């Protein structure tokens, strides 16, 4: 190939510059338009929350939602919150939910990390069978297994205890898969070096690989926390004593089948139930979005 003459290239470049300049102008207009459209759409996502939070402070809305609907309460009051806390043991439920979330996170992450590491780096006899087993059981919906699982916990007398949450947490196949594909990207030589230096397999995992797994650990913590905190079906089946209810179950039981009396009181309770998740989301919002995108792409 002959080198192209200099002139045409230069003139082409000039033409292109002029073109991009005019394009930039229309682009900027388009961008502003795009942002306006998306901002309007954002209102649909935000306004229901805003309305609920503001109405939860509306003392007049405790019996009936005022007509015409309003955002700003005529009578701002925290009494709705006092009522919510006296009618529903919210704090207890939140603490219960936190305990269950923490237990499930610790158990499921331990199970997933150890098995993910073993499948990825130890390549023991049958490791591929374990992987296939984990991947195929991942497809089984909980709704399929809930009845035998309920009867099982009934039989071993662990119904209405938090063991009904901790034990099934051992089966975290999706986490195993996430951990395995993350650890696949870490070099094998680290393990070999550790073994040569006289460390055993457990120490190699704990001291060398575990610290490198922090990013995927964080992702799994987020996924599991959201899943456990927001779950209703299994708590509904497994927990019978009101003292042990999770926040979702407590809230559901209070509002269930009552035609939602005391609107602003229920809204106050719902707002409180959302606080831990929303606060976490505000602080870790980018991280959470990345985690969900990553786990979704992996699946």
């Amino acid at each position: 190939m002959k080198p192209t003459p200099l002139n045409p290239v230069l003139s082409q470049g000039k033409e292109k510059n002029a073109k991009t300049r005019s394009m930039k102008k229309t682009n900027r207009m388009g961008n502003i338009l795009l942002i306006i459209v998306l901002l309007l759409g954002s209102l649909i996502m935000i306004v229901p929350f805003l309305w609920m939070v503001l109405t939860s402070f509306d003392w007049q809305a405790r019996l009936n939602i005022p007509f015409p609907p309003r955002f700003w309460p005529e009578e701002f009051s925290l009494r709705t919150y006092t009522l919510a806390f006296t009618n529903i043991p919210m704090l207890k439920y939140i603490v219960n939910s936190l305990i269950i979330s923490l237990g499930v996170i610790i158990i499921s992450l331990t199970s997933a990390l150890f098995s993910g590491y073993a499948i990825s780096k130890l390549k023991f006899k049958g490791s591929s069978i374990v992987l296939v087993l984990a991947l195929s059981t991942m497809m089984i919906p909980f709704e399929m297994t809930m009845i035998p699982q309920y009867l099982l916990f009934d039989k071993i007398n662990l119904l209405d205890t938090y063991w009904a949450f901790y034990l099934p947490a051992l089966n975290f196949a999706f986490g195993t898969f996430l951990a395995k594909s993350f650890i696949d990207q870490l070099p094998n030589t680290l393990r070999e070096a550790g073994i040569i230096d006289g460390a055993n397999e457990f120490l190699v995992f704990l001291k060398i690989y575990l610290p490198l797994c922090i990013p995927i650990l964080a992702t799994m913590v987020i996924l599991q926390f959201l899943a456990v905190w927001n779950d209703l079906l299994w708590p509904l089946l497994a927990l019978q004593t009101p003292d042990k209810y999770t926040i979702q179950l407590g809230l559901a039981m209070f509002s269930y089948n009552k035609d939602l009396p005391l609107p602003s009181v229920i809204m106050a309770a719902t707002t409180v139930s959302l606080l831990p998740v929303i606060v976490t989301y505000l602080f870790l919002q980018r991280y959470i979005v990345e985690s969900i995108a990553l786990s979704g792409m992996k699946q």
Partner: protein
Amino acid sequence: MPLKTEVPIRQKKARPKKKFFNSRDLAGYLFTAPLLIGIMGFAIYPMVAALIMSFKKSASSSAGEWVGLSNYQYVASDKMFWESIYNTFYMGIIAVVLGISLSFILASLIHNVTGLRWRNFFKAVYFLPNVVSLVATSILFTFLFNPGSEGLLNYVIGLVGIEPVGWFTDPSYSRFSIVLMTLWGMLGYNTIIFIAALTSVPRDLYEAAEIDGANWFKKWLYITIPYLRPIIIFMVIIGTINAMKRFTDVWLIGGTAGNPAGSLMTAVLYIYRNAFLSSQMGIATAASYILFMFILTLTIILLVTNRKSNFD
């Protein structure tokens, strides 16, 4: 070829330790033991137990007598079961189709915004309803969709002269109202996955198309859509599976009868009623296996159509 394969075999044989399992295998079994116990106890055992239970006469796991296929016959001839399947599919199909197309449009819009800050802002805002529990969403929407004129949505449509609608109380609207609520809650999930996928489309493909004179629509049709097809198929599968499992919202809004007029009776609600209200474990597990077959068939059909279209 034969020479090459022989070398590693010989090396393996030459290894000093020739035990049935070495320490590495042992560590592997110890490390995977918790997961294996979990899979055995909470995936394989329940699946087998449910299958056995579905052939037995109600009651708890061991008590009932063998009744063959009669539980399946009961479910298959139960009008309420087929209504629940119809409702589940009705809501599921609309939610999946609308959800995926809307979130794809939304993702394309957000992806094309210049300025990283704006993009992250929109991702965060549209994803927000996704972290909210279904319980809270259902309570919130019961107020928003209040059938009286004081409901926020009825008030808004009243401003343009539309009569108040019984969103959750009129059986001809209730299913669609549930779909609207689901869309509000789930749109962000699909959107951020689509955005991640859009970012992964190689830029040089677009540049090459631009040189060939393709406009944005052609680029979208011939590059973006084919490149994203696996993701779209994945979303359809996940969306369908999730739609088949619908329980929490319809239980909170319509109760165990799936009110209004049974229009919100879903398959899982049917299973729940039979298992935990009338203790008909046999019927419930038979229904859950029929539902599982539906899910499995759908998933396989989708995977096969995806593979087929990949060959074209």
